[in-house]
Structures are given as structure tokens and as C-alpha cells.
């Protein structure tokens, strides 16, 4: 008989090992799934994990994509992880990401065709503020009326998508765009174009911001008293109140940080890789970042690695669709498995397995 036994304290070894185990299990079960779909499993796995980086033909295109995709994922996931540590579940980063892009783009376009070097920083601030403000809606509703931030932030994603649609088709539409939906293209406006900083690396300002966020979050959570208060609130809310932590402030702080970072990610995306506000701007980064945050164990450096890994499955997934004709849904399933196995193996962090003989009742 197998019995689970609670560990006296969480195992450090397993905390580090579970993400690796989850990746391996995902590869195995994913491979079985690909085989069932009639595709060569090893080749599919190789296409997803190996080819984007090392394929002689495609790698030169897909390698820079790694940072392009990982940048926003990491930036958003870092913000989310701060809230998750406090037990505040912002599920609506996608909405904050969209609103950040819209407000940042709107502020920039208001000054079109200015060539000022201050404009881009101003847009970054506007994007962050937009995301922050969007996250303040669930925060204020929670602190004032006790609503559930999971539901409110999630619902606001759909509101944000409608705002995005209206922006791209009416009030931010390119006046010189022959009536096609979509804003002016920032790629054709050098003063604000968030271009690659080093050619063919995919490194743009958003990636730089993500790296700064990783270090900032590490310092906040490990060294700063606010980070300590955030962790304390997540671990034991009553003890936090006893310690003197104001729960309202923690909610505002956590949702504010995650909203601002998501909004900033949206701005970097719209002025860079996406290039314009368009109806299909929302790409699901805000949701995938939730997986990234957990895959990275809510640890800033873990999130950095998880973001890169998740970006790899995105690019590799697209490649696999192209090369092997795998259905898009199977790639999403594959990514979902990663989170599933992570949560499943997570049990070993707090529990150990004991094999015991059948006891006499």
C-alpha cells in the first residue's frame, strides 16, 4: 500500500527537482500523445525542444524569437508571482497587458509625429499606469466590497478585449490606413520603435525590463520587509495581521505590481514585435504567464528559466505544426501537461511516499 506522509518541512531538493521531473513526464506523455496522432514522437519532441535553437535552416530565424516570446512572459509572470506569494490571484494579466498596450500606444500617438527621445519613456510609463489602473479595479472591489479578485480580474480580460477592438477599429485607427482596422505602425516611427538592441538576438527593451524585474523581484522577496510581509500574508494571514501587516495595502501593492508589469509588457510588445494596435493583439501571454509563474516555483530565477522554456515550446510548437502537421490544439495540450505534471509532482515537496505493508484493520 502506498501512503503519503507529510514532511516536517518542505523538501528543498524536491522544490528544485519537480520542474525537471514535470518536463520529463510531459515529454514522455506528450510523445505518447503524438504517437497516437500518428506522428513520430521522438521527432516531434526534437522539433519542439531542439530545432528552434539548433536546426541548421530555421534556427537563425527562431533563435531570436526565443527572447521575443520569453520577454513578456517573464515580465508578466514576475508580477503575478509577487501576488501569488501573498495568496492574491490575479488571473487577468492578459487584460492588464492589453490595456497597458492601448494606453501606452494612445499616449504615444497623441504626440505623432514627434521625434522627442522622451516620448518612448513616457509611453512606457503610460503603459505601466494603464495596466496598474486596470488591476486596481479588482483590487479596490476586493478591499472595499470583498469581491473575489480571480473572477473580477478574469472578467476584465473580456472587457479589455472589447476596448482593444474599439481602439483598433475606431479611436486609434490609422487615419492613413485606408479604413483598415489597426493603428499606425510603430515600426515606421523610429523615435518610438522598440527595435532589437543587438541585431538578431531578439533583445528589445522589454527583455531588458524583464531581466531588471527578475532581479528586482528577487531583492524584494528575499531582502525587503515588504516582500517578507507579502510572503507572510500568503503563509499565514492571521500571523500577518498580528505582525502588523495591513491586508488592504498588500492587496493594492500586489495587484498594482502585477498590473503595472503586465501593462509595461503590453507596451513593449505593441511598439516592438507586434508593431501596432490591432484586433488580434492579445496573444494569450497574460494567461501563459500564470503557467510560467508556477513552473518557476514563484521564484524569480525559476521564472526566468520557465519563461525561456515556455517560449521554446511556443516556437517549437509552431515549427512542429509547420514541419509535421501537428494540430495546434495538441501543442496547447502539451503546454497544459507541463503545468499539470508540475502540480502533480509538487506533492513530493510537502509529502513523502511510504510503501507500507497492508496493516491489519
Amino acid at each position, binding site marked *: 500500500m502506498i501512503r503519503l506522509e507529510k514532511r516536517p*518541512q518542505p523538501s528543498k531538493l524536491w522544490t528544485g527537482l519537480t520542474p525537471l521531473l514535470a518536463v520529463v513526464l510531459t515529454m514522455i506523455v506528450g510523445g505518447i500523445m503524438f504517437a497516437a496522432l500518428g506522428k513520430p514522437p521522438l521527432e516531434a519532441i526534437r522539433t519542439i525542444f531542439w530545432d528552434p535553437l539548433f536546426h541548421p535552416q530555421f534556427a537563425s530565424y527562431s533563435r531570436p524569437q526565443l527572447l521575443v516570446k520569453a520577454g513578456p512572459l517573464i515580465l508578466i509572470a514576475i508580477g503575478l508571482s509577487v501576488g501569488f506569494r501573498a495568496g492574491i490571484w490575479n488571473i487577468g494579466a492578459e487584460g492588464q497587458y492589453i490595456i497597458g498596450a492601448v494606453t501606452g500606444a494612445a499616449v504615444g500617438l497623441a504626440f505623432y509625429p514627434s521625434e522627442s527621445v522622451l516620448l518612448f519613456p513616457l509611453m512606457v510609463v503610460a503603459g505601466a499606469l494603464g495596466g496598474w489602473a486596470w488591476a486596481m479595479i479588482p483590487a479596490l472591489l476586493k478591499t472595499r466590497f470583498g469581491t473575489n479578485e480571480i473572477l473580477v480580474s478574469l472578467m476584465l480580460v473580456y472587457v479589455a478585449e472589447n476596448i482593444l477592438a474599439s481602439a483598433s477599429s475606431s479611436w486609434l485607427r490609422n487615419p492613413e490606413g485606408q479604413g483598415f482596422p489597426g493603428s499606425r505602425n510603430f515600426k515606421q516611427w523610429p523615435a518610438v520603435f522598440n527595435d532589437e538592441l543587438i541585431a538578431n538576438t531578439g533583445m528589445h527593451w522589454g527583455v531588458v525590463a524583464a531581466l531588471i524585474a527578475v532581479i528586482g523581484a528577487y531583492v524584494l522577496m528575499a*531582502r*525587503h*520587509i515588504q516582500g517578507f510581509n507579502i510572503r507572510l500574508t500568503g*503563509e499565514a494571514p492571521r500571523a500577518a495581521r498580528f505582525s502588523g501587516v495591513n491586508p488592504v495595502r498588500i492587496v493594492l501593492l500586489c495587484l498594482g505590481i502585477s498590473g503595472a508589469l503586465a501593462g509595461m509588457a503590453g507596451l513593449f510588445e505593441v511598439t516592438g514585435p507586434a508593431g501596432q494596435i490591432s484586433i488580434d493583439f492579445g496573444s494569450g501571454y497574460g494567461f501563459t504567464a500564470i503557467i510560467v509563474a508556477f513552473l518557476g516555483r514563484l521564484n524569480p530565477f525559476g521564472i526566468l528559466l520557465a519563461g525561456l522554456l515556455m517560449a521554446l515550446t511556443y516556437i517549437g510548437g509552431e515549427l512542429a505544426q509547420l514541419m509535421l502537421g501537428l494540430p495546434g490544439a495538441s501543442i496547447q495540450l502539451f503546454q497544459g501537461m507541463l503545468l499539470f505534471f508540475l502540480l502533480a509532482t509538487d506533492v513530493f515537496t510537502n509529502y513523502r511516499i511510504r510503501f507500507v505493508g497492508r496493516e491489519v484493520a
Partner: protein
Amino acid sequence: MADTLLSIRGLTKAYPGVVANDDVSFEIQKGEIHALLGENGAGKSTLVKMIFGLVKPDRGEMVLDGGAYAPAKPSDARRAGVAMVFQHFSLFEALDVAENVALGMENPPKPRDLARQIREVSETYGLPLDPSRTVGTLSAGERQRVEIIRCLLQNPRLLIMDEPTSVLTPQEVEILFETLRKLKSEGTSILYISHKLEEIRTLCDEATILRLGKNVGTCTPREVTARQMAEMMVGASFATPEARATGTGEVLLKCDALSMPAPGAFGTPLREISLEVRAGEVLGIGGVAGNGQDELLMALSGERLAPKGSIFFKGEDISRAGPVARRDAGLLSGPEERLGHAAAPNMSLTENGVLTAARRKALVSNGFIDWGKATGFAEEVIKRFDVRTPGPGTAARALSGGNLQKYVVGREIQQDPDVFVVNQPTWGVDAAAAAAIRQALLDLAAKGAAIICISQDLDELMEISDRFGALNEGRLSPTRAVSELDIEKIGLMMGGAHDMEVAHVDG
């Protein structure tokens, strides 16, 4: 009516270091509501666990309806017609009422029959309950009804209820009492465990009083006062403590008619609590659990802010100051619940040190935690208070109750408070650790601090306090010097405000 249902003869059960039940004998008649009364730790739970087959007695025997009765497990007890409603419910929130009832039965009938039976029983005994409701949506009182109905469906001859009213609202208590009286009129015997004296007086026919594992007496609750029962609970073993130099220092903490609403549905409101505690003095606050102890601690720690002008620290109104400001001023506190309130279970001892000592011990500068200093502080506490643990990196939940208690109390004492408020400082702690904690409190007072010790252990309060008061339904009796107290006066104070009036006339 004189038929005896259950006769308990000389039951003894010893655990390492403590005799939980020592030669306990009493009888429960058929159709009788029999109270089992005693303070926390008096051995009530162990006794009913033996009757219900959860614990095997070391010595002694039980006779049920003329036949020998020695249940080896709860299902034996159930078969013999003994059912028990526990203080903590064992229900699945996601399942509905009927499914929960079925799970607790040996041979559950078909779902449809069961739902009909539940409806019948709930109507017969005035326990309104819909079998198809999900348990997660039920109030505590309704959940208790699920447990009761589960028992009643097995037609028990003896129903054991462990502190059933501790989770109920006054209205729900009324409904429960009606049900119990109806059961009694049908000949079912009830063993009713409680330490709420007034309840026992209204409901029970006979009462057996336990103190320190011994049966110290039987009485008919209707014929004695709550005060007399309290005296029996407290016991004659109480010795008048030696007079101590009562603190004559300045008043450090003062409450002036402190009133606060109850924090939740089952909390107790604080009603016009007035107290003073002076430098070098220990004020002991007694009373039965659930009479406002937790609420008083939260009001003094600053977790719940009191109305303006009700709490003064060194003459300054701190009623609206939060925990951080109060700690800065020198008012520290230690809550009763170790895990989750005084300490975060999954965090290390070092982190749990930062929890309250961050500012007083300057473990934080410019918002950044100095982990080296924090570890040093944790090590100091571990060393000075002899906390048995591998080191300051250990998670709080990995410590035994006594060791964690030494750590959380020591954490505050190590910060040299001017006033220290502590609730149940030695609850669930072994004798040696308890003695060490009490000594630390006395040493702190000797250095000129004022201490408020809230406890349900009267012996402890008599040992360390200079003055004593008792909480009853959120009211604090006038405090008196311990040297003037005798057993009767303590009984009066614990008996509540009504009895106190009488005392004033007498005195």
C-alpha cells in the same frame, strides 16, 4: 426511572507523564441528561473516548444495561447503542447532507429511503434540515444537525455530545436543547460535556464533575448555583498563595470601559472592560474559554482597533494605533494559537523572529532585512529559552508545541517589553516547559514590566499573578489582589456578573 443505563466503575487511563483519568466512577440513568463538567485538561475527553471505544482504559470496567461493555472500536460502541457527536465535525463539504449521513453508517439504506428517513427524523425532533443541501453551504449549527441526525438514525440508547454549543448561536442552542429534551422524554440518555455552567443548570438532570482526572463530586445542577459548581471545578486543592509585594509602580496600561463588537458570528463582544496594570505587576485574567479571551488579546495587541479613548499606554491613548506602533511604544503580546497566529507554520524560526521583532531589534534598516542579525536574534531566543530545535532555519511547524511556545513567548520577552500581554502561555506545554515560561514571566515582571496573563489554568494564575480578574461573556470582573482571594471569591468571579452583584451586597 431509576434504571441504570451505563455504569462506569473505576476507569483509569494514564498517558506518559499524566494520569488523564484516575479511578472515575459514575452512573447514567435511562432517560437522563447527565453533564460531565470540568476545566480544560480535566480528563473529560479521555473519559468519553473510552466510552466510545476510541481509547482503551488501563483499569476499570463499564456496564451497559446490565451487561459488560468494553468497546474495542467505535463501531462496537455504535452497535451497542452508543453514539457520539464530536466537537469538530467530520463532514465532506462537497457532498450533500444525505451522502454525508450515509458515509457514517454501517449499512446505509438506498439514497431515496435515506432521504425520507432524514426528513422524518428532522421533523420529529425539530431539526430542520434538507437532505439534498450541500454541506458546504450549511452553517455550523446545521452541520451539527447533520451529525446529530446521523447518530439518531441508529436509534442510540446513549448519545454523547462533546461541547455541542461552542459553535452555536443562542437561537441554535435553544433548538438543540428542545431536541435533547425530546430525546430524553423518549428514554434516550445523553452524556453532555460542557464547561458552560448556566447551560448545564438549564438542561441537565445530574452532573459529574472532573478535576485533574478525578471525579470530585456529583450534584443536581438545578439545586446548586453556578458558583458552587465553579468551586467544585476549581477544586479544594487550591491553596491561598503567599502574599507578594503588589506592584506599586506607575500604571503602564489602562483600559477604560473598553467595548468592542464580536469579530465574527461565534466571537464574543467585549463589554466595558476596565483594568489597570502597574510596573512590576502580573495581572492574571481567568475565566472559561470563549468568554472573550481571544478578543481581549486582539484588542490589546492592536490587531483590532478599539474605539478612541479606551486603551491608554503610559497615559497616552493608543486605542487607534496598530500592532506596529504599539510594539514600538513597548506593548508586546503573545496570542494563544501558536501555529498560524503567533507564528507562520511554514516559515523558519528566523523569519518568525522578524515577524514581531523587526523594528524593536532593528533587524530592518531602510526597509531591508538584515538576515544575519535576524538569525542572531533567533539564536538568542533559542539559547535563552532552551528551545529544542536543530537551528533557526527550521520551519515553525516542525517544532513540538512546547518548544514552539517557548520560542514565541521568548521572542517577545527577549525584546524587553514594558507591557506584555499573553494568552494561554503554557497551553499544551509539558510541565517543565510550562514552569520555565512562568519563571520567565515572573523575571520579566521583576525587571519592572507589567504583565497581563490570560489563562484558563487557575493554578497557573494563582502561582504567578499579583492581582486576578475573570472574564465572563466579555465582561471583566473587578480585579482583586490574589492575597485576598479564597476559593469562594474565585468561584464568584468566574460565575459571572450576576453573581458578583450578590457579592457586593454580601461584602
